[in-house]
């Protein structure tokens, strides 16, 4: 089967999956009684109780499921995701406001998580069954057993509470004054990038200072996954005949380990790295809540607690889409770089 055919088939399948996800999310939200869902349409505070019932009628919140679903889907295709009470703005506006904060943390932590994982995994495999290997494996298994929220709180307690460094949030108060002032030109929404574009290095530093703890938190928790995979694929690669041949020929050990074996061991790590990216986004609900970083995770947590239905549905759909797209990209990369994979 040709590549184009494969891509088309995967795209069609992706749309099917997203439809399924949307039906599920919508179905779940329909469990909430209309009287509570109507709050999504109330944009001002002074509303009489008898008006609520007419609003339920107006927006057809008591209609049968398929009718409401089709109406909702139609709105989505017109780019109308509804109004988010927690963001106090239309959902898409809220997303534009919150997403850069999340993206910034993911962009800084994901490469570090992957590098740490690959490095530890390689070292662990080369020294299989030696104390270094045991140590790294124990570290990894502890890492993914720790509750995200607990590790975050401990880090905050020690660094912020006791040592007085690395406060929660995204910027210091002085930094916020700068960012919210009229001179500040927000282009990307990423504080570090905008800081450079505005030539305000103090803001760049301030933002990085606030990124350190959440990044450490994510490295400890998430690199274990990459590390374990890297270790096992590396072990597999090290067991191959050509490695033994190379070593027997007297080739430099370092070259054999880090060039020949690791390159082959890296392949599956490409897959898991994509999934890690999607996973990091989804895990932001907790990380951002603890470090009070106002990104989509923080938004989602507030939306769930306050029954902000449009925001909840949008975020689930968004993360589902990211997951499916990332999976597709990963598979395509995989097919492109590994000649052993046949499309089908």
């Amino acid at each position, binding site marked *: 089967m040709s590549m184009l055919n494969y891509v088309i088939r995967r795209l069609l*399948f992706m749309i*099917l*999956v*997203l439809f*399924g*996800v949307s039906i*599920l*999310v919508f179905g*779940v*939200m329909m*469990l*909430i009684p209309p009287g509570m869902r109507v709050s999504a349409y109330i944009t001002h505070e002074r509303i009489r109780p008898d008006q609520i019932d007419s609003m339920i009628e107006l927006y057809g919140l008591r209609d049968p499921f398929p009718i409401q679903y089709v109406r909702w889907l139609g709105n989505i295709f017109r780019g109308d995701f509804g109004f988010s009470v927690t963001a106090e703005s239309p959902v898409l506006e809220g997303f534009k406001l919150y997403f850069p904060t999340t993206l910034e943390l993911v962009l800084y932590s994901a490469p570090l998580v992957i590098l740490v994982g690959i490095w530890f995994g390689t070292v662990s495999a080369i020294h299989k069954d030696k104390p270094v290997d045991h140590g790294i494996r*124990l570290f990894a*298994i*502890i890492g*993914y*057993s*720790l*509750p*995200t*929220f*607990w*590790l975050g*709180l*401990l880090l*905050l*307690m*020690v660094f*912020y*509470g*006791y040592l007085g460094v690395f406060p929660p949030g995204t910027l210091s108060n002085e930094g916020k004054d700068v960012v919210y002032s009229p001179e500040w030109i927000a282009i990307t929404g990423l504080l570090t990038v905008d800081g450079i574009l505005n030539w305000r290095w103090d803001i760049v530093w301030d933002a990085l200072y606030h990124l350190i703890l959440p990044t450490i938190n994510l490295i400890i928790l998430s690199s274990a996954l990459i590390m374990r995979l890297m270790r*096992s694929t590396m072990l597999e690669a090290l067991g191959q005949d050509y490695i033994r041949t190379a070593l027997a020929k007297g080739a430099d050990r370092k070259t054999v380990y880090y060039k020949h074996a690791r390159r082959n061991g890296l392949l599956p790590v490409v897959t898991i790295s994509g999934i890690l990216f*999607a996973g990091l*986004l*989804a*895990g932001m*609900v*907790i990380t951002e*809540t*603890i470090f009070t970083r106002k990104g989509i995770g923080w938004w*989602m*947590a507030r939306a*769930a*607690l306050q*029954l902000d239905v449009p925001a*909840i*549905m949008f*975020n*689930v759909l968004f*993360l*589902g889409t990211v*997951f*499916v797209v990332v*999976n597709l990209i990963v598979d395509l990369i995989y097919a492109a770089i590994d000649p052993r994979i046949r499309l089908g």
Partner: protein
Amino acid sequence: MSSDSKPTLQPASGDEDRVPESTAEKPQAGHPRWKDLGFSLKRLLKNPLTIIGLTIILFFVFLAIFAPILAPPPRPTDPFLMPHKGWKIAPSPPSKDAPLGTLPSQYDILYGVIWGARSAFKIGVLVVMANMVMGIILGSLAGYFGGLIDEIIMRITDIFYAIPLLVMGMAMVVALGRGLTSITIVLIILGWPTYTRVIRSEVLVIRDMDYIQAARASGSSHLRILLKHVLPNSIFSVIIVGSMRIGITVLIAAALSFLGLGSDAGYADWGQMVSTCRNWIVGPADNRLGYWYVVFIPGFVIALFVLGWNLLGDAIRDVFDPKMRRR
């Protein structure tokens, strides 16, 4: 993979390797599957990490079983409500009354830790068991019958796979109403796809084995073949997956509780206990780490519980995974 079919059901097939196995069909001891299991268990118990993991799990089993003796509930009708002396907001440090200190509002941490073990086992075991059953039914149907049934079941599985578990979980718990029961239900609804995929891939291999063909040729019904031949040979993989999922399940449930979707304050649930301490990470001015026990203890208990299951699951995977074993 061995067969467990009765000789009468298995007409002489061309498969020479099988003959000694089928004739060795004496209950228990001699059966190759039990031999295999014995071998695996021996290897499992040689691993020091398994022993550590098992010890941790047994410790929590002990806490859960003897909870009424270790921490007698003041109100036996509601043992999960943590007792508290007074309503003082600030937590109190460890003392004679409360050996591990108290949470905000004076809830006894030790009591919560002990009864929380019951909550954790309830959620972990219930969710994993329910998911195993769902996975076994759906996965074996999909794998065994193939065709349209397979297509439908697996496409639904794909949809569930694309759902962000934590975020969708939050939405569903909100829709069902907060509380541990909702969390359990939601984790059951969202957790089955892993098991289904595992069982299906196992069944796909077994389905085409000669002894299955033979059983079908001799007139066994599909149900009989599934129950007597296919499942016994594929069920192990699901049990392994299950043992690895209990820790993660408890972790996710705790995360949902932590976000405020679990039980109310005062209920013996570890996740909920951590969530009440969020405002106490900075101690009083003279002792900045003054409330360490509030933050540290409940979360440490969760971490220990999950670590125990992960250590065990990891060791089990190493031993039973055909790729890793006998190296």
